């Protein structure tokens, strides 16, 4: 297999479920909520261990163990409820926005209840003395990840308020103090140990939370970078493939057409009318295949960014005149009158002369192709506010209104166009649009089916209208 066909992106498989791949944010949120619930199981277990440890090992005898254990039980039951609710949210079929809203509400409820319970726990285990008040941090961190920035600040405000209310109530004696440490000159070993444990666990847990988020972000970033690389490789492979195919296809078609035409010239008299006609038809078919191949090559060049290597001042009026010269015979044969209208002042545009020539060629050949005998094609230039405006107006078959938005797409041919004539690749307008956009201009179309079509191209006029020159053709 040639190397340009071995796309790295194509051979890789992604083992994630399709729904997750299609909606990564949904999957991400669901996972975070599960994480939140797991942390709460750990918190309940922590309380169940900490209370007897504090009381019997660290000798913090004033701990209100009954109230605290009741609170822990309440938290345990709540968490069971959360786990069930999470499962139900996950199962329900919801669109992205509804899912985000449901998760947001669910997380908010959990955070508010958690803060209330934490405040109550702190109150029953020493109030201001309890160094585990650091644990408010975790809720703030979690809220920052899962909720909006504004909500995270609200959570910070709520935490601060609840802690302040507890302290003020205790300070003014509105609730009774539950000191774990008698006020003295020195703290007991147990209190020091608890304080160290509190700060240590806060810091380490904080790092764990933050790093698990950044690790996730870094992984996401790497995945995105890889996806972008893959897409670019694929695009490059596609264009390389197109170029190769076009090149290799062109030579034999050129040879076939040359031979057929030479044969027609020299042998038409001995072939008889039918034979000669068939030879002509074969030549025309080879010609349309050649046009398609050339258009594909042009499109591939435009897509790889290798088109329009030249940017020079181009005299558009001269270019248009000589381009139309080549259509005169064709128009006459088809019974179409070809009109030209130019301003007195020159129209000089910066761009690639070959591409600009192709632009006019495509628009005019389309106009002639889709105009029935007796019709008219008018090509004109005018200058409007430092812009050159080209209009190609025909009295042809027009474009159906429903198909107007897609006429510039690759390979598109309108239904009535296909009926009118078999020739045409459906690439001409896509190419024309690319050329105009590369030259910093715009292309517009207006059409009435059955009446005719007008293409209007607006191109910026070169800043200093220098000597418009022409470039030798590049063989390909």
């Amino acid at each position: 297999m040639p190397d340009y066909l071995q796309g790295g992106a194509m051979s890789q498989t992604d083992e994630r479920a399709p729904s997750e791949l299609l909606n990564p944010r949904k999957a991400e949120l669901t996972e975070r909520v599960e994480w939140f619930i797991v942390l709460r199981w750990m918190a309940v277990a922590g309380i169940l261990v900490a209370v007897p440890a504090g009381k019997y090992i660290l000798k913090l005898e004033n701990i209100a163990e009954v109230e605290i254990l009741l609170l822990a039980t309440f938290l345990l039951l709540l968490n069971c409820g959360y786990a069930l609710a999470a499962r139900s949210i996950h199962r329900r079929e919801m669109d992205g926005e509804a899912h985000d809203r449901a998760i947001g509400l669910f997380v908010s409820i959990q955070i508010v209840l958690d803060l209330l319970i934490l405040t109550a726990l702190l109150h029953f285990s020493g109030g201001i003395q309890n160094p585990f008040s650091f644990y408010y941090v975790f809720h703030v961190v979690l809220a920052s990840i899962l909720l909006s920035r504004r909500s995270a600040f609200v959570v910070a405000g709520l935490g601060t308020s609840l802690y302040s209310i507890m302290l003020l109530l205790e300070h003014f004696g509105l609730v009774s103090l539950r000191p774990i440490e008698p006020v003295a000159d020195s703290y007991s070993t147990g209190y020091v140990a608890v304080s160290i444990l509190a700060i240590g666990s806060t810091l380490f847990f904080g790092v764990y939370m933050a790093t698990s988020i950044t690790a996730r972000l870094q992984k996401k970033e790497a995945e995105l970078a890889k996806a972008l690389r893959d897409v670019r490789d694929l695009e490059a492979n596609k264009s390389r493939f197109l170029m190769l195919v076009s090149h290799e296809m062109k030579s034999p078609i050129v040879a076939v057409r040359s031979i057929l035409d030479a044969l027609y010239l020299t042998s038409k008299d001995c072939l008889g009318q039918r034979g000669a006609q068939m030879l002509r038809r074969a030549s025309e078919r080879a010609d349309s295949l050649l046009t398609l191949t050339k258009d594909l090559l042009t499109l591939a060049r435009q897509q790889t960014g290798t088109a329009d290597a030249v940017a020079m001042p181009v005299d558009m009026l001269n270019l248009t005149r000589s381009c139309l010269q080549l259509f005169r015979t064709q128009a006459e044969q088809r019974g179409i009158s070809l009109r030209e209208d130019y301003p007195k002042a020159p129209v000089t545009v910066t761009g690639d002369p070959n591409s600009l020539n192709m632009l006019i060629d495509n628009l005019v050949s389309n106009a002639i192709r889709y105009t029935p005998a007796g019709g008219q094609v008018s090509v004109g230039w005018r200058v409007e506010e430092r812009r050159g405006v080209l209009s190609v107006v025909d009295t042809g078959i027009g474009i159906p209104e429903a198909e107007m938005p897609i006429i510039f797409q690759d390979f598109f041919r309108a239904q009535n166009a296909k009926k009118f004539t078999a020739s045409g690749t459906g690439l001409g307008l896509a190419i024309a649009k690319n050329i105009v956009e590369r030259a910093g201009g715009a292309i517009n179309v207006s059409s009435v089916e059955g009446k005719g079509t007008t293409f209007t191209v607006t191109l910026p006029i070169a800043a200093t209208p220098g000597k418009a020159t022409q470039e030798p053709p590049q063989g390909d």
Partner: protein
Amino acid sequence: MSKRVLIVDDDPDIVEAEKLILESRGYHVDSATDGESGLAKAMDSKPDLIILDVMMTTMDEGIRVAQQLRRQPGLKHVPIIITTAIGQVTSLKFSPDDEILPVDAFVEKPVKPAHLISVAEALMGGN
């Protein structure tokens, strides 16, 4: 004596087709399939017209052959037609005195027989 045309093109089918077209008008046609042998044949036989393909072994072989031909005393004034499938008709003027592309005419491939004949006749005069 009939006028002589030298075709230099690496595609033998193109050579054959162009040969058929020109021979039908009574020209004597010789051919070469690469730049080097084309140059040698031209110096040897002094044709009345040379038809050169642009892309042969290299992208611009035909152009370089044209430049070489212009430097040969006996071939300086022999008209040259350059052919290539450039994909787009351009409104260029060709001059045998051009430094880069010293050719008399350009004919796009696939060549249309009537066009090739009229260009050849215009450059050589009738046969």
